[in-house]
């Protein structure tokens, strides 16, 4: 064994007790704060990072408060893996928590953390699992091999025109058999991304010309003329299943479902609700309870098959006909994990901190409970409070926040890196998320009512360099609160 791989007491990171670990919090803002609090609660020391643009963020204040002045390091960028490794070494960290975004789903980063001379633990799934499930085509193929429904269409790049036409024809026919009056097929460059090289086909007779156009575009832009052909689903709800498992990968359990259908025009989530439907309260045109059971079962089947070994989210599309299709797997903690945690009980203990669970299991502890010991109570709701202009295509608003406060409530958890005791300039380098408000109620009606009470209590004011008043999505959240869990 190389000397560098050994940490204190001559042990490898996997052999340390969890309180002998030190976690590098490789993220910013509210998620960094949740990780720090979780570490603190578990008795694990941590090191935090910040960049010059983030020096006024409350995540810096909390790091100093919980970890002391020397636990906080200024780095050039959160995107620079060398910075993270170098601070981890200098502060003798034994594990890295990536949070969400940045390196959270980067299998190369996860591999580097665990394979370098001075090895550490990556608090997330193992790098092989991130690689396997991070590839959407691979995930789709795996799902199909297990009988898990995926969006109808190709599960590999298509290079042959006759085959492409055959797939498109079958997708049109499938939609017609589902009673869809305006079936749509999506043609997209397999090597593309970010919305580039995608076209919808409304008319089967137009398919060939669209296919050729996308194929040629893909060849020019990506040097690969492979094309994917899928059903374009428009009228759907976006659901998720929260999975969690220990390092053995043998005992995955679920923490229920979430509904994330209320989104901005750019398909970014704004309101998340757990559980994913409310069949006992609302009417659905399908058996919603059965859909929730099915997607949980499908997700667990896949998690078991791959030996999933940390937290992860299976994302689903559910059509108006009650058909679930697996969209993708997010091999990380989600922003909205708290909404599942707030309705969960484990062995009688209420409100589960899924980030603390992620850390505990990531560092090698056994899960210690079974699915039978996990119960849920009530309805959880999360609002993403964002400086943006919903009336103007949700364009981010940038400027100085001068007043930010709300009325505390026993049923409210407010997660924010924005200071409430001083003005705060929103950094332009990052997403404009200001806060997450998690609300619990014993049923859907109470949760919605409390949500509105909370939104009415928020004061969020500021102005930009031109003297224009702060714009936020609070009215958008209020208006949409009545719609939650409706389909």
């Amino acid at each position: 064994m190389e000397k560098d791989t050994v940490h204190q007491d001559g042990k490898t990171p996997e052999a340390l007790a969890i309180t002998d670990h030190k976690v590098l919090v490789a993220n910013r803002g509210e998620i960094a704060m949740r990780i720090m609090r979780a570490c603190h609660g578990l008795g694990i020391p941590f090191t935090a990072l910040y960049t010059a643009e983030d020096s006024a963020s409350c995540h810096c204040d909390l790091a100093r408060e919980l970890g002391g002045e020397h636990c906080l390091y200024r780095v050039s960028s959160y995107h620079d893996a060398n910075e993270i490794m170098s601070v981890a070494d200098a502060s003798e960290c034994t594990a890295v928590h990536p949070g969400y975004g940045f390196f959270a789903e980067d299998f190369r980063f996860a591999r580097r953390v665990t394979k370098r001379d001075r090895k550490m633990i990556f608090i997330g799934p193992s790098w092989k699992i991130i690689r396997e499930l991070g590839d959407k085509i691979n995930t789709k193929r795996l799902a199909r091999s297990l009988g898990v429904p995926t969006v109808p269409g190709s599960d590999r790049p298509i290079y042959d025109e006759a085959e492409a036409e055959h797939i498109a024809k079958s997708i049109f026919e499938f939609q017609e058999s589902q009673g869809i009056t305006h079936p749509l097929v999506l043609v997209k460059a397999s090597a593309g991304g970010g919305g580039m090289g995608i076209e919808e086909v409304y008319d089967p007779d137009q398919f060939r010309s669209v296919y050729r156009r996308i194929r040629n575009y893909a060849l020019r832009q990506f040097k690969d003329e492979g094309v994917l052909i899928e059903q374009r689903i428009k009228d759907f709800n976006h659901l998720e299943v929260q999975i969690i498992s220990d390092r053995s990968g043998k005992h995955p359990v679920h923490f229920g479902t979430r509904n994330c259908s209320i989104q901005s025009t750019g398909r970014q989530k704004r309101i998340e609700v757990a559980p994913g439907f409310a069949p006992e309260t609302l009417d659905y045109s399908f058996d919603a309870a059965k859909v929730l059971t099915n997607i949980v079962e499908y997700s667990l089947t896949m998690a078991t098959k791959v030996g999933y070994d940390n937290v992860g989210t299976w994302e689903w599309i559910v059509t108006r006909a009650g058909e679930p299709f697996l969209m993708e797997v997010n091999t990380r903690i989600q922003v909205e994990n708290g909404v599942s945690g707030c309705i969960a009980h484990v062995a009688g203990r209420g409100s589960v901190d899924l980030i603390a669970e992620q850390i505990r299991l990531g560092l090698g502890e056994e899960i210690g409970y079974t699915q039978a010991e996990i119960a849920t109570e009530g309805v959880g709701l999360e609002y993403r409070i964002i400086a943006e202009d919903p009336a103007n295509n949700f364009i981010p608003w940038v400027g100085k926040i001068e007043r930010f406060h709300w009325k505390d409530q026993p049923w409210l958890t407010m997660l924010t890196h924005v200071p409430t005791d001083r003005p705060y300039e929103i950094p332009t380098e990052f997403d404009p998320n200001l806060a997450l408000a998690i609300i619990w109620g014993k049923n859907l009606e109470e949760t919605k009512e409390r949500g509105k009470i909370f939104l009415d209590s928020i004061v969020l004011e500021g102005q930009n360099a031109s003297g224009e008043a702060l714009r936020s999505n609070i009215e958008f959240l209020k208006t949409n609160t009545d719609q939650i869990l409706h389909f």
Partner: protein
Amino acid sequence: MLNISELLESIKESPYRDIVIRTPHTGCLSFPDLAIGAEVHGPSSQWKNKPGTLLATLERERNPKPILAPEKGELVELHTELAGTFVEAQTAVATIRHRLTREEVEHIILQKALFLFRAPERAKYYFTPEMDKKIHATESHSVKVRDGMELLIMSRMKREVHLQYSGPDGVIYAIYFKYNENIDAGAPLIGVCTQEQLPAIQEVIMRIKTEWAGR
């Protein structure tokens, strides 16, 4: 009316700029054999390919990065007490007292003489593709702008919006931003010279050339 003589005199009274050299990222610092008071030089030769004086070395993940003097001047601070320690990004390593060059004096005075179109928000700025082509294809001081024309793209938080120029019609005489760098709200983006002002600006440049040349 700009009083060039007065401006030049005030610059001559203190013709220096202190340049604080900071670490670009984290790492472990070491210093060469340099002392406060030493003369250092910036990159030189026709293409500036000869590096400036080595001020320190920053090692991170076994990669040593030389920290070099960006300009000529006198070393007035050198934080050798940091030798062998792990430092954060943006830690001050040295300070160089640099005597202003003629180009820098021109830059200072032009900022007072030209119409400055400023950044409305902290963001990254790019010329629109058409304007970018013109600026690269034509001679300097010949790209015209007029009030209301689409000139720049303002990029922040993964969103881009087009930005119209507002100000007097004229030619772009100076560009104050670099691609991919964040510009603070209120910082100048371009300096515009009106057609009528052009002879006066050229005279300013000539005066700086003659009055600063021998210094």
